[in-house]
């Protein structure tokens, strides 16, 4: 099992640091899946996570100038590792002004992801900083939990308002209630409601063209699809979004799940929050 990669460009490095910082806000540990074309940060919907799941994907060639991965056998070209995101994000933060960054999988006393950063110090001599981040290799038999989630057929699909606004509203609501109702319809209206009749209404958001033509034709555009979710989980998701994404869609499956599909330039992030049971 081998993995080595290198980032030489400062802009790519900053973007990668930003991605890892954003994911670190969404989860403490997650699975990093490395395959020849892509990198995925995956959180599968276990009970430990409270049922939320996350799938973040990025194309490796948008970031790395060199990228080599070899799985356990010739057919299995991917490696899945479990790591603490805080460690990775902390290590990458040091690299903000680096000349080059190398990541490789090593096995010093236990498997580690070794991040080696070449810094250009103020006195213009280069300095090498190395971090060994402990990781756990996930065996192939558990890979079935790490598949890309199928996007459920949603009742309503709507574009989200500015996430920062949504976040500050949900922040204030969290002091009043534990769970919140998200409802939306096909006329571009989104409501966030909590029990004590406190509601925020967003209008004129627009709905993306629906994949399945039949479903949308049958549905009354004014009819709301709703789902009850835990406020803390919604807040954790919104807190991770510092920058407004290029595209943000919310798909609601009535009383089952809410699925957020974001696109930050070239990084796609999908986040699923189950309904309150």
């Amino acid at each position, binding site marked *: 099992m081998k993995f080595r990669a290198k980032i030489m460009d400062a802009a790519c490095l900053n973007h990668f640091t930003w991605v890892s910082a954003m994911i670190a806000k969404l989860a403490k*540990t997650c699975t990093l899946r490395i395959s020849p074309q892509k990198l995925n940060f995956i959180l599968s919907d276990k009970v430990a996570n409270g049922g939320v799941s996350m799938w973040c994907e990025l194309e490796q060639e948008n970031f790395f100038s060199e990228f080599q991965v070899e799985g356990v056998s010739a057919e299995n070209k991917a490696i899945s590792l479990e790591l603490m995101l805080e460690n990775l994000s902390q290590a990458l933060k040091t690299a903000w002004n680096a000349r080059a960054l190398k990541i490789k999988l090593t096995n*010093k006393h236990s498997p580690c992801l070794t991040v080696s950063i070449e810094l250009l110090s103020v006195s213009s001599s280069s300095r090498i*900083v190395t971090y060994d981040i402990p990781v756990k290799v996930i065996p192939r038999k558990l890979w079935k939990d790490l598949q890309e989630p199928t996007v459920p057929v949603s009742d309503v699909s709507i574009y989200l308002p500015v996430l920062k606004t949504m976040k500050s509203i949900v922040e204030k609501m969290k002091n009043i209630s534990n769970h919140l109702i998200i409802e939306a319809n096909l006329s571009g209206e989104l409501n966030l409601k909590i029990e004590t009749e406190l509601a925020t209404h967003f209008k004129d958001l627009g709905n993306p063209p629906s994949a399945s033509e039949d479903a949308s034709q049958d549905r009354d555009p004014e009819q709301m699809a709703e789902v009850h979710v835990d406020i803390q989980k919604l807040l954790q998701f919104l807190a991770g979004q510092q920058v407004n994404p290029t595209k943000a869609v919310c798909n609601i499956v009535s009383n089952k799940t809410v699925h957020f599909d974001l696109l930050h330039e070239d990084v796609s992030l999908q986040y699923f929050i189950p309904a309150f049971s």
Partner: protein
Amino acid sequence: MLKCGMSGSQVKVFGKAIQALSRISDELWLDPSEKGLALRSVNSCRSAYGCVLFSPVFFQHYQWSTSVKVNENDSTTSNLNCKLGMKSILPIFRCLNSLERNVEKCKIFTSSDLCKVVIQFFCRHGIRRTHNVCFQESQPLQVIFEKNMCSNMLIIQPRVLAEAVVLFTSSQEEVTLAVTPLSVCLKSSSDEPMDLTSSVYSEMFVGPDEFDFFQIGADTEITFCFKELKGMLTFSEATHAPIAIHFDFPGKPMALSIDDMLLEANFILATLADEPSRASSPPSLCLSQKQKRSDLMCSTNNNSKTGKNATSKAPGCILRKAAPKRLYPNETQTDIPALENCGSPIMKRVNEDISEVPESSVSNTEEGPGSSYLRQFSCVFFGAVSSDQRQHFNYPFDSLATASDSEEDMNNGSSSTF
């Protein structure tokens, strides 16, 4: 008896010194003398000592006198033996930036009959803030350490060290400095990573050209407490003066010092000692080590010079480690006999270490983070500051720790006091 005054910007430096010393312990000695005002701090397990000496030239005005007590038979002169709690004095010097802006003058004086130190800030707009801090009468401790006799010395700008320090997470308690004549490496001294929750191992190499002065006798690796290094670093950034690091071999204390016209700061930190007989043991730092360390500490405290009952839960103590990972039960048993020899003969043990530790037993930097020997902890020894010259104490530590303020001793160069 002390009376001194300083300006707003001097208050900032003074406050930074107090903040740096607060990382060492919860108690601060205010020790004025003809050399200037010394602030001293020692941690309860005696593994770290800090002293910042402000020369009279630092202050706008500085007056000091000893009080003379006339008894029946003789008269004894005594210094101001003033010990303050950090909890009382630290909040006074909080928000140093705003103090620097608002304070026009600061006066510190002691009240001779009551055990009080008065700190007065004369601020803008005619506001005057007075703090009365009660102190405990206690003779300050002072460490005897000949830093100029160390074979390794590095002088570095604080900014460079600050960049290195950013690497380490606050959860790491100890840091290892590994030097060879060609390079210097600062790395975390954690055990081998066992699982996801263990801390990240980090290391940083700094080339010799980044140092203002670089003198390395031989390859060495010393491990010391990170928290105290950070304290010294923030202080040095305030004074913009380079830091000198004096050290020898593992086990012998190391000194971090700043020498400036107006002040002299010295932080003496104990370093982990390598156990020479364990040179061939498999690499591990484990539960047995924790037991060893805590036993050492308790026995040292029993024989401690000031007779203080320091608890083993001292916050500044290098011996407190997060849950250690146990690997080799055998070592635990064999170490216990070694432990029985500890305690007051700890001093003797250190002497043995000094002669027994050959340079080659120092761990090889190339072996990677995990290989380390079972280490034994050693302590620093102290003498009390006393105006009585050449006062000797009836303690077994006599040969190392003698208190002396006299000029002759300093000129002899046999020991230097801070």
